[in-house]
């Protein structure tokens, strides 16, 4: 009967290891940052992700949307990453961890020491947030944050 006990102990260990990821909190999160410039100059659309085109047209009254950059960031818990943006803006993303099953992400957009926005977002699994409004080259900058994918 000794082999059965050894087998049972091994299987219990496997069970504990297998359920580990379910019980532990997420140690990092992934964020896709897409930078757009919206303006009323022309009627061009240059968006790699067509899924948001219709939404942007519905939401805003600009005639032209240009995707000017895209960044992927994996942010460890408690860590920050700075994404340099056009027009001397910078965005600081901080992953604050998980609370009640939701990812907490802090996003700051600043320029020349002034904060254009300072926000904390709580995302359930995946979420999309548009941060917009900072002026950029006769238009405005729109930053699409896709979290937790």
């Amino acid at each position: 009967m000794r082999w059965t006990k050894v087998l049972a102990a091994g299987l219990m260990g496997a069970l504990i290891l297998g359920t580990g990821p379910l019980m532990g909190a997420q140690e990092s999160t992934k964020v896709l940052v897409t930078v757009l410039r919206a303006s009323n100059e022309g009627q061009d659309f240059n968006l790699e992700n067509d899924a948001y085109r219709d939404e942007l047209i519905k939401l805003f009254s600009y005639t032209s949307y240009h995707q000017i950059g895209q960044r992927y960031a994996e942010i460890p818990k408690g860590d920050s990453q700075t994404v340099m943006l056009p027009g001397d803006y910078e965005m600081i993303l901080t992953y604050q961890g998980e609370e009640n099953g939701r990812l907490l992400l802090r996003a700051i957009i600043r320029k020349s020491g002034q904060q254009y926005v300072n926000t904390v977002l709580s995302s359930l699994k995946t979420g999309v947030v548009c941060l917009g409004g900072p002026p950029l080259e006769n238009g405005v900058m729109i930053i699409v944050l896709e979290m937790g994918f």
Partner: protein
Amino acid sequence: MSGRSDQDISEIYRGYLRAELEAPEVERAKKRFVLENFGRLHGFPVWPVACFATAAAAVLIFILAPLVHRVPSGVVVPANVTMRGAPVAPAVERTAVSPALPQAEVVPPAVPDDELPSVVVTRVESDMGQVMVYKESAKDHPMTIIWIFPGR
């Protein structure tokens, strides 16, 4: 009289049989016989069945754990930057920033997860002007919009 004798004989015979069968030697012999001939039937294979069930559960958990833990919602598009005007810096830089908020106010879910908004703005502020938070509840692409109005 004859009937009564038959009945008495039957009673005596039954009593004799009962005494014989209930004798301790007979009981022991019956138990020994059952153990020797049918002992294996009583040894239900508990350990192999338990081990098999545990192994099946472990395999299921290994298969399902990554799926339950994090399911990718789409394909990650590699950074294919079309530069116009001021470019985005090529490398993501890490800098030390002010410490994270000690306690973000998150309302505990009181409704099923399916009915909760995917994103909740727990805090928003701006040095530059007014801020508007708007939620577009499109079925396929629910979106939260934070718009800054500089100078207003």
